[in-house]
């Protein structure tokens, strides 16, 4: 029984880290991994989703609906941002870093001015479960399930729907897709909006577990970039395995040496991966498969 409890503790740690990485990086994996835009405002889309979720939930909407609301609003904001700013920068990826950082500054500070330095959050639902002599938050188990569901949902979206096929085609060969009659600008806009909506979803899912401050996006951004860079361009053969590996690194380093070394381990993993396999895991996996 003791062994089972310890194993559960380890698996819980691992699952928690895995869920966090997958959920927070999904939006970025689409915007950076597929479209090649380094979106430093990713954290602010997450913050937007979290704020909308928290306020709608406190107005009486059930939590799952509130989370969807958060994702929707973040998605709409994302499409607006794409229309106004990002659209002009597809040819200049380095400038898109600066522009999105500018957006992030405006968003963080704007929210601080309008809504104050903190917002009343919503409590973590579902209570806790007891395993051995420790108790664990049940909501975190829901998050792990949500991470897996998110991966499956995205797989279906990109490989079994018309939008998915068109989006992948547009991103791989924009001129060819355009020649075949695809409105590529609209597809880019929708894809960016989808990425932003996924960021909003991450914010909504994690809103009940966090304090609501305008800078909350910063908690996510480093981890999501790490996961996407280690993963490479493809979400499914890249980001998902990357999340598994990084979650293992992080959970074990955190368990043995503390939180800070967990963080340091992640960052060092990135540097090593970029050096050893520049295309990330997905390029490496695809390379060995052929």
């Amino acid at each position: 029984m003791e062994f089972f409890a310890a194993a559960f503790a380890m698996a819980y740690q691992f699952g928690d880290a895995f869920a966090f990485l997958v959920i927070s990086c999904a939006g970025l994996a689409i915007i950076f991994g597929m479209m090649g835009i380094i979106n430093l405002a990713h954290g602010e889309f997450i913050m937007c989703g979290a704020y909308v979720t928290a306020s709608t939930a406190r107005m009486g909407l059930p939590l799952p609906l509130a989370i969807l609301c958060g994702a929707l609003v973040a998605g709409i904001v994302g499409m607006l941002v794409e229309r106004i700013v990002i659209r002009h920068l597809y040819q200049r990826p380095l400038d898109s870093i600066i522009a999105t950082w500018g957006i992030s500054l405006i968003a963080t500070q704007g929210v601080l001015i309008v809504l104050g330095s903190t917002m009343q959050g919503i409590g973590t639902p579902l209570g806790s479960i007891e395993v051995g002599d420790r108790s664990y938050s049940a909501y975190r188990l829901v998050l792990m399930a949500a991470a897996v569901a998110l991966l499956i949902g995205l797989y279906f979206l990109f490989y079994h729907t018309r939008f998915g096929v068109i989006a992948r085609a547009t991103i791989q060969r924009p001129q060819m897709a355009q020649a075949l009659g695809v409105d590529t600008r609209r597809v880019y806009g929708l894809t960016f909006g989808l990425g932003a909506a996924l960021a909003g979803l991450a914010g909504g899912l994690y809103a009940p577990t966090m304090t609501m401050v305008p800078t909350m996006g910063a908690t996510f951004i480093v981890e999501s970039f790490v996961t996407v860079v280690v993963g490479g361009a493809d979400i499914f053969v890249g980001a998902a395995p990357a999340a598994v590996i990084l979650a293992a690194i992080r959970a074990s380093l955190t368990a043995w040496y503390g939180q800070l070394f967990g963080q340091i381990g992640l960052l060092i993993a990135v540097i090593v991966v970029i050096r050893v396999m520049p295309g990330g895991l997905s390029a490496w996996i695809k390379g060995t498969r052929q």
Partner: protein
Amino acid sequence: MDRPDTPHTDEPLVAETQIERRSALAIWISRLEGPQTMGRGPVFWATAALVVLAAILYPLFSDPFAVGNSAYFMVWTFMAMGLGVVWGYTGALSFGQTAFFGLAGYAYGVLTINFGAAYGFTWIALMISVALGGLFAMLIGYFMFYGRIKGVFVGIVTLSVTLVLETFMAQTAGPQWRIGEARLNGFNGMSGMPPLTIPWPGGDVLLYPGVGLYYVLLAMVVLCYLGLRMLLNAPFGNVLVAIRENPERAEMLGYDTRAYQMLSFALGGALAGLSGALYTAWGQYITPSSMGLTAAALPIVWVAVGGRRDITATLLGTLAVLFAFQLLTVYGSQYALIVMGALLLFTVLLTPEGLIATAMRWLGRLVGRAKR
């Protein structure tokens, strides 16, 4: 790229060494103007001399606090010019100049706390710190450029490096984290190091933020700026620009692009280190947050807004942005960051070359037209 003042190695070297040495100096001086830097001719240099003169006279008409504050602005220009070389001229966007800044800043603190400030040691500590920043950058640069990392990934690697350093330094709070006498103090940062000290008979001159430090920094900024102008117009600078424009072509022309990129990155790191050590000496204080995400992004803002492809625009832009930012913070710190973000967006969307660079080009055209 082939210019009359470039020495051709296949020419017979018959001239006497005396003349040869003088002509080498003349060549370097002639490189103050060239294709890689904006501004040439008497009008430009007269304006530059007037600006320097105004900067020299400025402390006479101002209070010591404002002068110390201006010295603070100048501390940052080295890091910005270094980033200008790495990003604007070589084309590698480094997000982690603050790593070298922080390393050198901490090195200066550790060295001076341990060995004191006697016999001008602070200057030796400054040089060691700069060398450390440069060597560390060379190591990272070797790792990246010889590993053929390019594009946005350079930014991600460098950002990771600086964040690793920040995270590491933030957890050094315990008493076991000390180097000699110097406690690292974790997130609270290190303080109590001596400022730059000039040994002087009859009492050392301590350069606290004020008029003395202002003049020393002004001299350093001017020297550094002129030196970079000469270097960028030299063959070395031409190769850097060739790499930025087309790495494959530069390589086919026979240049080892990896070595040039690494050296440029090391130069950028050393300059960032100079800023870091000077910053520590200026405020006798350094914290891990000087290597954090916000700090790392600031040099990018200065260089992007000023104009990254020209060292003059970088220098002026950095000073202008720092000044404007402080002004905004004084009149309403909440809105300062919003204006900053808007300024960035505006620059990227409307004047991709940078505000100052565009303005300088426009002025240059105006002056050219007036002459005709």
